[in-house]
């Protein structure tokens, strides 16, 4: 087999990133070549560090740093005694958690599902069964100090809908309040372009002003 060459390997590897096609990968590769060596090494180390040290938090599945060689860890949010342990906000992916954290408005805890329950795909909720079990464990254990609310921040599509219905069915018997985030017109958009489903959903989710 002919050797590919360092430059082509770099391009190929960059193409593994989402949204990066051959053209962009080439552009990135040339840019990296021109970069000071120090900076290029920093990027490379950041990537390997992320893979070596980042783990899923053993409580909420959020991303967290751990010492190399330690299998599990607890994230900063779960470890923070100032957070309200009576509220758990359930998200599909960790990026929603980060977006909510950026707002600084929410003081409770989280639970990351890493996916949804999708009735239309053949494997159903295989991908999320471990994280859903984890959530149920937390709720059972949390009964002692009184978890008061589980907030479902899932997508307003059929998978999110099914996930919400499934979780509600599981959680309700514990007497815990289950709420779901509002769904409707996106902030900053024009209402005239909203379709009927979006409009009806936002009408249903209306509130007093």
């Amino acid at each position: 087999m002919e050797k590919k060459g360092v430059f082509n390997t770099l391009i190929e590897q960059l193409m593994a990133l989402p949204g990066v096609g051959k053209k962009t990968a080439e552009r990135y590769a040339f840019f990296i070549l021109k970069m000071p060596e120090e900076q290029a090494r920093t990027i490379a180390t950041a990537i390997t560090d992320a893979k070596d040290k980042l783990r899923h938090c053993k409580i909420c599945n959020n991303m967290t740093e751990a010492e190399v060689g330690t299998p599990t860890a607890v994230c900063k949010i779960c470890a923070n005694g100032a957070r309200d342990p009576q509220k758990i906000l359930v998200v599909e992916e960790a990026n929603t958690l980060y977006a909510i954290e950026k707002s600084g408005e929410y003081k409770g805890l989280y639970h990351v599902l890493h996916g949804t329950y999708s009735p239309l795909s053949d494997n159903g909720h295989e991908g999320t069964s471990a994280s859903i079990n984890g959530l149920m464990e937390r709720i059972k254990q949390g009964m002692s100090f009184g978890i008061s609310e589980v907030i479902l921040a899932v997508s307003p599509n059929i998978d999110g809908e099914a996930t919400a219905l499934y979780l509600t069915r599981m959680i309700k018997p514990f007497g815990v309040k289950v709420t779901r985030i509002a769904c409707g017109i996106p902030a900053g958009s024009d209402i005239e372009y909203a379709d009927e489903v979006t409009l009806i959903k936002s009408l249903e989710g209306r509130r007093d002003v």
Partner: protein
Amino acid sequence: MPLLSTEAIVLSSLRLGEEDKLITFFSLTRGKIVGVAKGARRFKNRFGASLEPFTHCHLVLFEKPNNKLARISQADILYSFRKLRESWEPIERGTEMVRLLLRITPEEQPHPGLYYLLKEGLTFLETGVNRYLSVILFTAYLIAESGYQPRWDHCVGCNRSVTETAAAPSRFFSCKDGGLICPRCTTSEAQCISISLGALTFLQTLSKIDFRSAHQYSPSLLLLREIETLLKDYMAYIIGCHHLLNASS
């Protein structure tokens, strides 16, 4: 670039990469088709809720030569069937209907009969009088509409009328032959399912009326269970044959 403009029902929606969705439709003019919705996963996208499963929409697709996947350029909701996505039972039952249809239909073969059957099926699920019955009736009419209507009146082997054989304790359905088979014609290797007189009578009735009228009946749960099992076995046999055909061609 040829343009396809048709009404369609969304069967399934899958994530495709970071920004796109892969949508399977059952369309009025082209049967089962797959299209890519570029940017449909982005927060603000022009598709809104129009590509959610069960949605009845008007669809415009661009088809590129040499590219199997068409691109969805526009989808407008005609009827959203949103109530089907808001509680557990309709999601499950609707999914069941869609799965059966997906499995039995080949791609890109127009079949208006199946299209209207699906639309009616979803309508019955939405009104929700007896959703279990609706799915079983849907299965029966899906089989018939796809060209596999079983023979419920004569033995598939000797063509004797079932009234002659009905007295016998053994009434059997043969998946392989797609119909009733009398004890005389039953061979050891034929996969036969025994069928009760009640189930047979109901299935005979169905073959004479349409899907909508069939909803006026309310058979017992026991009878429905029996018919469900029989139809599912038959479906599995039909689908198995499809796979063999596709594998050999």
